């Protein structure tokens, strides 16, 4: 039986069209895009085409697109570029619900002497914008706020934040790894200075990321060496993956409508049915401003890892905000930041869909989940109380 994969915020399958576009660059077309000869040059022209495809998805200029190895590299590159371009500034701002790629870097910078403001969220995962704005100062080097949360799907008003941050002459970066491809983005009209995305979240392979850097933004390279990527990221290009990334960007534009209608309808059906059929269950996150493919549902009085393993028995693949799946002992920092009670945080399951999910799969999950939760609750000492 093929697995029913609803863990697309973790990673996505490589689209067949993307794989097809990439394959020749693993075999016959192996030239170095930086070479002077025609053999390498033909690969170089494909890399340029991919850059244009990604620029189109973001509503940006091709020269504003920097290929990296992953979302994490894009985040680190952006944040280090901002602080190294403003060495006199010692204050940085982020949120309590960032992905570890940003969260852990800010914690590291805090230990290195930076004053870090971490903006809290409310019970629905919405940002406390007053705290963010009040803390902007002449000493602030960078503000980094994710566009959409990977666990709850909550969308933050980054365009509005970016405008306020720019008014103060401060660099604004957004980790848009979950947002790109699922919602329209036009960087030309935006005040965002830098934006990170990751290929494997939108049906390109793992190992390819993108950093958008607005033209004119002060930039200090993270990797130094050759002159690739306009001297902003040295290293021979991961050509096959870049070409795959370009094709995936093109497909994302074509599928965005489907994501916002059919996928959203499937997500809503899954959510509504599970809340109806499983007592003591609730949605984590902003019910309004949310990615169309994501729902995080808390099942009270049961533990996430146990739920996931029973789901796995039925071939259903999802994620949990439970401590036990992460190797930590505390439930997800996102759910804790939102003040989700322990009764619910330990039993939270994230379902994240893609254009490849079908209604039959959603019906199957709806059919199996109540039994799984009931089985574990019958074992739980808290359920009878």
């Amino acid at each position, binding site marked *: 039986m093929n697995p029913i994969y609803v863990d697309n915020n973790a990673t996505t399958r490589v689209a067949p069209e993307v794989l097809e576009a990439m394959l020749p660059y693993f075999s016959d077309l192996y030239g170095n895009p930086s070479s002077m000869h025609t053999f390498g040059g033909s690969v170089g022209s494909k890399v340029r085409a991919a850059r244009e495809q990604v620029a189109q998805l973001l509503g940006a200029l091709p020269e504003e697109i920097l290929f990296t190895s992953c979302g994490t590299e894009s985040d680190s590159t952006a944040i280090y570029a901002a602080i190294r371009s403003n060495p*006199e500034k010692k204050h940085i701002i982020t949120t309590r619900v960032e992905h570890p790629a940003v969260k852990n870097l800010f914690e590291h910078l805090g230990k290195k*002497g930076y004053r870090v403001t971490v903006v809290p969220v409310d019970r629905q995962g919405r940002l406390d914008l007053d705290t963010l704005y009040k803390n902007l100062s002449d000493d602030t080097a960078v503000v980094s706020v994710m566009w959409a949360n990977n666990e709850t799907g909550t969308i933050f008003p980054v365009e509005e934040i970016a405008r306020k941050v720019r008014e103060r002459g401060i660099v604004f970066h957004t980790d848009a790894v979950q947002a790109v491809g699922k919602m329209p983005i036009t960087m030309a009209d935006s005040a965002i200075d830098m934006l990170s995305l990751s290929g494997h979240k939108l049906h390109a392979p793992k190992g390819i990321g993108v950093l958008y850097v607005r033209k004119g933004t002060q930039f200090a390279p993270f990797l130094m060496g050759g002159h690739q990527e306009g001297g902003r990221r040295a290293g021979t290009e991961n050509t096959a993956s870049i070409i795959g990334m370009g094709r995936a960007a093109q497909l994302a534009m074509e599928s965005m409508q489907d994501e916002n209608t059919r996928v959203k309808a499937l997500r809503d059906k899954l959510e509504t049915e599970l809340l109806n059929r499983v007592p003591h269950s609730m949605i984590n996150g902003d019910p309004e401003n949310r990615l169309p493919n994501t729902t995080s549902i808390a099942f009270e009085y049961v533990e996430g890892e146990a739920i996931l*393993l029973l789901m796995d028995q039925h071939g259903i693949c999802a994620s949990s905000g439970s401590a036990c799946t992460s*190797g930590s*002992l*505390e439930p997800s920092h996102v759910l804790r930041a939102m003040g989700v009670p322990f009764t619910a945080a330990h039993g939270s399951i994230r379902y994240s869909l893609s254009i490849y999910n079908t209604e039959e799969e959603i019906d199957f999950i709806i059919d199996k989940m109540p039994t799984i939760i009931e089985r574990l609750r019958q*074992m739980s*000492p808290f359920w009878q109380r």
Partner: protein
Amino acid sequence: MWDYTNKVKDHFLNPRNVGFIDDFDGLGEVGSLACGDALKLTFKLDEGERIADAKFQTFGCASAIASSSALTEMVKGMTLDEAAKVTNEDIADFLGGLPKEKMHCSVMGRDAMEKAIAYYRGEAEKQVEGEIVCECFGVTDRQIERAVKENGLTSIEEVTDYVKAGGGCENCHDKIQFIIDDILGNAPRAAKKPEALTNIQKIKMIDATLEREIKPALNQDGGDIELVDVDGNRVMVKLRGTCASCSKSQITLKHYVETKLKDLVSQDLVVEEV
């Protein structure tokens, strides 16, 4: 995904002895919702004072459920003295091993058995012995000492794996390391832990430390520091002289001033420039 043995998987997917014995002889409850796992254990004795039946209810991950299931299977037929000798290692061994991060599940089983036996024997509910070291999971120094001694633990990570202490905010790591070092003979244990400071004592000590230790060092480089206020554990200071305009002043503040005050006054202090 955790690497579970087939026996752990079997006891998770087909748990034995789930339930609650209404006319129980022994009852032991451990853990909590906040901690992420909890176990309620009941047993019934036969006429020969051997465990005739044991049942469990568990909130927790696969290894917590498997450990509970294994424990109930192991103790059936045992006398209470025999059951009291079942260690967490015995439970883990019965399952063919547990991932190290999950050893606390087997400790939970052992603790529940101890409580259930104490209940039967009419022994008063044991008060939590010792001083809470890990606030996040409510683990005492005695519990940590026991885990270290019984399981030969040598690192904070191992302590966390076995009793959870240190797995939350990590503020207690220094104290855990102190206990480990003490047991392993790596460091002499202090005769007595310092009492909690009153606000006045704290302010006086901060002021004295600034005057005695910190100011002279800053003065050497033409800088100075002034204590502005103390609010709880927030120490508000103003840098003066060359320190005020130094590009590395925040590093001085965090890496030198705060470290000194933490070492010499209280680990909880946070220094801020105002």
